[in-house]
């Protein structure tokens, strides 16, 4: 895109070291620059502009999407009001399937929320350089995923207007919520994770907001000025910023592990056959990361396409994410195998029935689609050719998300249908209200991204710039070696 701009050409002399005389070497350097964002520096103002320009574009297509997505969210909101008015009876819930799609959505969206911190914090801690341009999108996936997920317990409960009873607020009767209940641990963990994630995302965006502030006038200027908290970019500020981000990165990783482990305990702590399993903790953490990384890939692809950020988001990022996805897929396979083989070996009559429903019963199509999406398709990422094709990686990521959604569906309502006394067995049928609310939840994620894409820089410019300053190519003999200089 802006590579063709005359400004880019003019600045080349300033921001790129002169090409060596040796033609072979120059060719090699050219190749490396094409491959790696951090070896391909441009004049900072151009980078700023590349990120800021798409934010001002309010095209017709934007408004159409805006209206459609807002409509989805509004529809879900209306459905929720109707559900509150009439009661949960309008959904497909019945006895014994008291938890269904809403809890599936809850677990799914929490899962989506996992990848953000993992990519941003864990890769930051591990000093993996290629994560620089993707951390913002990942963090936003976390924030919006968690906000959506946090809505679902509210939508799910019978009397949402009494939700505050779950909060430990001081009251005249001195009744506190019961911390025996996994639901309370759950809420505590999610609230911790959500507030940490918002703070983490905000701290990391501050320098970019300051950058945006310095490039804008009018209401945008005021808006960024407020949010940037008077960032000037002094040495002390950068040092403090670095410290704060490091504290959050190290702190948020254990929180991330705790959240989905606790979510899994909602099930694992229950007496329900096929839920009462000790492997659920790590298994859910891996499952969450798996679908979450898939979601981040989808988000990156959308941003790259519609915000024209292909300078920042390159094949190397999709390749890196695909490797990550592959690794998680293998881990998930391992855990799922464990989760299935133990009940199968045990031959408990109820778990046997559940397994039979999955492998050869009514749920067989979903079960095999899940295995295809989570096991077979991600395995193609072993091939470099698949990893190097951005559309292929996106397709795999979409299927991983479908597969993981199905996985939660098979665990929650399908297992619940079978319990200890066969007289009370039942099944769950999806009804319209929960379908609309689920669609609205997906709509909300896209809507939030759409809105944010016009308000906040989706690429952490300062991180990219920092990476480009620190990284360089050194020539050792005939070989070109990427090197990194440590900041003081």
């Amino acid at each position, binding site marked *: 895109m802006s590579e063709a701009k005359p400004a880019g050409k003019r600045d080349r002399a300033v921001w790129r070291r002169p090409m060596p005389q040796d033609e072979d070497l120059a060719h090699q350097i050219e190749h490396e620059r094409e491959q790696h964002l951090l070896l391909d520096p441009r004049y900072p103002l151009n980078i700023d502009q590349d990120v800021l320009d798409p934010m001002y574009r309010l095209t017709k297509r934007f408004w159409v999407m805006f209206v459609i997505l807002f409509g989805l969210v509004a529809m879900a909101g209306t459905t929720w009001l109707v559900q509150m008015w*009439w*009661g*949960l*009876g309008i959904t497909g*819930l*019945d*006895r*014994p*399937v*008291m*938890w269904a799609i809403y809890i599936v959505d809850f677990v799914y969206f929490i899962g989506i929320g996992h990848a953000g911190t993992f990519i941003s914090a864990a890769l930051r801690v591990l000093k993996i350089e290629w994560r620089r341009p993707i951390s913002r999108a990942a963090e936003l996936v976390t924030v919006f995923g968690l906000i959506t997920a946090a809505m679902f*317990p509210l939508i*799910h*409960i*019978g*009397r*949402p207007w*009494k*939700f505050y*009873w*779950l909060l430990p607020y001081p009251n005249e009767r001195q*009744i506190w*919520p*019961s911390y*025996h*209940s*996994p*639901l*309370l641990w759950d*809420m505590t963990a999610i609230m911790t994770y959500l507030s940490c994630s918002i703070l983490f995302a905000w701290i990391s965006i501050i320098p970019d907001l300051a950058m945006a502030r310095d490039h804008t006038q009018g209401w945008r200027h005021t808006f960024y000025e407020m949010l940037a908290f008077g960032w000037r970019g002094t040495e002390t500020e950068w040092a403090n910023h670095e410290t704060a981000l490091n504290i959050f990165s190290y702190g948020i990783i254990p929180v991330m592990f705790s959240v989905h482990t606790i979510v899994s305990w*909602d099930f694992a*702590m*229950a*007496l*329900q056959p096929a839920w009462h399993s000790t492997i659920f903790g790590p298994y859910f953490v891996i499952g969450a990361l798996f679908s979450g990384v898939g979601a981040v890939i989808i988000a990156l692809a959308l941003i790259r396409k519609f915000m024209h950020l292909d300078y920042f988001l390159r094949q190397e990022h999709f390749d890196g994410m695909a490797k990550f996805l592959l690794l998680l897929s293998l881990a998930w396979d391992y855990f799922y195998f464990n989760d299935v083989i133990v009940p199968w070996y045990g031959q408990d009559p109820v778990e046997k029935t559940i397994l039979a429903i999955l492998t050869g019963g009514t749920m067989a199509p979903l079960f095999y689609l899940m295995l295809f999406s989570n096991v077979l398709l991600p395995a193609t990422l072993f091939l470099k050719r698949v990893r190097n094709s951005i559309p292929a990686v996106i397709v795999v990521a979409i299927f991983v998300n479908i597969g993981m959604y199905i996985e939660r569906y098979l665990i929650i309502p399908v297992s*619940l249908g079978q*319990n*200890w*006394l*066969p*007289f*009370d067995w*039942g099944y769950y049928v999806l009804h319209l209200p929960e379908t609309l609310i689920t669609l609205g939840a997906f709509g909300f994620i896209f809507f939030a991204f759409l809105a944010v894409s016009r308000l906040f820089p989706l690429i952490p410019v300062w991180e990219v710039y920092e990476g480009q300053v620190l990284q360089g190519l050194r020539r050792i003999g005939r070989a070109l070696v990427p090197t990194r200089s440590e900041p003081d």
Partner: protein
Amino acid sequence: MAEFPNRKWTMVVDLDKCTGCNACVVACHAENNVPIQTEQESTRGRAMHWIRVERYWEGEYPNIKARFMPVMCQQCGRAPCEPVCPVYATNHSERENLNLQVYNRCVGTRYCQNNDPYKVRFFNFFDPEFAGTLKEQLNPDVTVRSAGVMEKCTFCVQRIRRGEEQALVENRPLRDGDVVPACVQACPSSALVFGDLNDPNAQATKLVRENQRKFRLLEELGTEPQVYYLKGGQSNVGG
């Protein structure tokens, strides 16, 4: 306030005597203001019966036998539904060994039902409707539950209260048979017996103590249920 002695309320269900007539179910509905679901709702599994008669078929046609098993809340000593409630809406009465449900504290997470191996908890999917004159015969001693809360068998706690208060007024200890839940009262074959296990002379105590046929439902889960079943022999079969 007067001191009430500790109780260990229990129900004994003699499966040999149960004919599967469902009188207990009807009596329970009338006593506890349990909403009557429409046919459509019931087929979707939303029928609300605090006590139900489970029917299991044995054998192959034509040598088929039906076995009946009344199931109500087992008032577990270590109830799995209790710890999972985030707001203490379901909790334990140590004194009476009852599992209590506080309707107006319930927010409707429905976790208790998931964790309940007997599936004897019911969720009010809609506001209850009592058609026509049914409204006139609601029991004033029992709350009518609104949409969004869980409910379950209470061992007719309102009758327990009334019996204890009556005994207090008359300044005498509670006698066996003073408290009779609606299902027990209605059972034509006396398959259900209710009593206090702490009372050595109660009929229920004797039945539990002496009987070789006794078992408790899903006892292996460690829930310590307070309902004892007496295993049915060949007489516990129907056509």
